[in-house]
């Protein structure tokens, strides 16, 4: 009888959360440690990452900020069906996405074309990313297991928000907007100009203090930006297919200490309205809220009201501006700095 069948036999008598907790414990009970283990930090949390193979580490590790944190808040293992048979956890009607928040277990089943199961035992501080097909969709590689980090932020002032963030001596700018609004362009331009970089897609923000921390050191580059940011593209930078559009999956780990956080000073909402040089226009907290919330809420399942409350607080923490970022990306850092210094 396979482990999945054994688990399945129990499944009919167990709550889903109990079965998931049992299976997470079983993954960590394996005598041999994960072949590749490394510490990392992710927002306000310290992680111990374990990868079942070099391939998995190669897929996900470049996105993580590898450093030794003061404490380990989450032990996280990346495993495939070949390492652990967790098929008993795949819910009925497996084509549907599922979310379970029950008894200290948070679990997300993302079927899509390449299915992924994320689960965390918040009490044991252990999580798993299970890849039944041995691979993950590209957008997960750039922000691996972010839903589990979201779960750990529950009942804290921290929130993973959909936005980029970069910082200068004048403070940090949070860049809020939908895809193609220019967040990555502005963030990479600032990073190239020597600013601190906290992310181009999702960053951690403390909704009470305005402290920003990076979650990952990744960025996703569209073909049109390759020439401007050639210096960030390494010899082994993978190119993924994102809905038919190529994306360079960058790791900005080489920025070293410049991967970091700071205090929110302003929220910029990038938009392209035809300005040649960067232009700013005053915006309202409600504009920042509408720019930040949609992707944040849709990509981080669970506690929607809590997310909305935190995002609303973040939207009100600092002045908000629309930023028409112009046609020359490398003019953006000076324009941002000028605006931040006026505050």
């Amino acid at each position, binding site marked *: *009888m396979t482990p999945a*069948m054994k688990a*399945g*036999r129990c*499944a*009919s008598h*167990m709550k*889903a*959360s109990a*079965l*998931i907790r049992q299976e997470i414990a079983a993954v960590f009970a394996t005598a041999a440690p994960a072949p590749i283990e490394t510490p990392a930090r992710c927002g306000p949390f310290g992680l111990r990452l374990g990868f079942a193979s070099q391939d998995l580490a190669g897929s996900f590790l470049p996105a993580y900020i590898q450093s030794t944190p003061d404490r380990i808040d989450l032990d996280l293992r990346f495993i495939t069906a070949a390492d652990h048979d967790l098929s*008993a*956890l*795949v*819910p*009925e*009607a497996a084509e549907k*996405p*599922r*979310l*379970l928040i*029950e008894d200290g277990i948070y*679990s*997300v*089943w*993302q*079927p*899509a074309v390449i299915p992924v199961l994320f689960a965390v035992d918040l009490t044991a501080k252990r999580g798993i990313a299970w890849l039944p097909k041995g691979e993950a*969709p590209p957008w997960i590689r750039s922000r691996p297991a972010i*839903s589990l980090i979201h779960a750990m932020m529950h009942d804290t002032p921290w929130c993973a928000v959909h936005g980029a963030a970069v910082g200068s001596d004048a403070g940090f700018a949070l860049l809020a907007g*939908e*895809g193609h609004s220019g967040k990555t362009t502005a963030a990479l331009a600032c990073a190239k100009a020597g600013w601190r970089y906290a992310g181009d897609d999702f960053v951690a923000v403390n909704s009470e203090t305005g402290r920003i921390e990076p979650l990952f050191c990744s960025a996703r580059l569209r073909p049109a930006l390759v020439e401007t940011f050639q210096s960030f593209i390494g010899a082994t930078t993978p190119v993924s297919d994102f*809905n038919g559009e190529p994306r360079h999956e960058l790791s900005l780990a080489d920025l070293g200490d410049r991967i970091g956080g700071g205090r929110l000073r302003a929220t910029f909402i990038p938009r392209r309205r035809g300005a040649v040089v960067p232009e700013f226009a005053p915006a*309202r*907290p*409600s504009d920042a*809220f*509408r720019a930040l*919330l*949609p*992707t944040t*809420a*849709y*990509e981080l*399942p*669970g506690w*929607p*009201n809590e997310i*909305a*409350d935190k995002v*609303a607080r973040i*939207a*009100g923490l600092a002045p908000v501006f629309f930023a028409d970022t112009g046609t020359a990306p490398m003019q953006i850092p000076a324009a941002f700095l000028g605006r931040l210094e006026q505050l």
Partner: protein
Amino acid sequence: MALTTSVPLLISQQFDSEVVLANYQNGVYYNLDGSAAQIWLGLRANRTVEEIANACASATGGDAASITPQVQAFVDSMLAEGLIAEGAADARVETWTPVLSGAFAAPEFQRFDNLRELLLMDPVHDAGDEGWPLREPHEG
């Protein structure tokens, strides 16, 4: 007919005199400003259409008889859009006064539906709370 502003999968946030509503089911966002926001806030304070219209008339020096049908029409449009619902009314707030300046302007909401595409792209957004039904084990 009792009306409530507590609608499942509809998130509301107030920013000073603005109200933003986000429908998590279909990805449509709404911005309510001016009299529109005050009418929604009046409903949330458990006021009737007549009470809201009278309060708006007092706040703006307007004519309640002409404001009432505008408030009623806006309430009907919010009901049709799913921004409010029939059901147990919200708890009554003892003191509520609309914050309006100038003449009463016809209420309307701004609708942002450019996020529908996102809903189609993202594989997790509709992860509901139906639980996590475990499959029956089958031994092959």
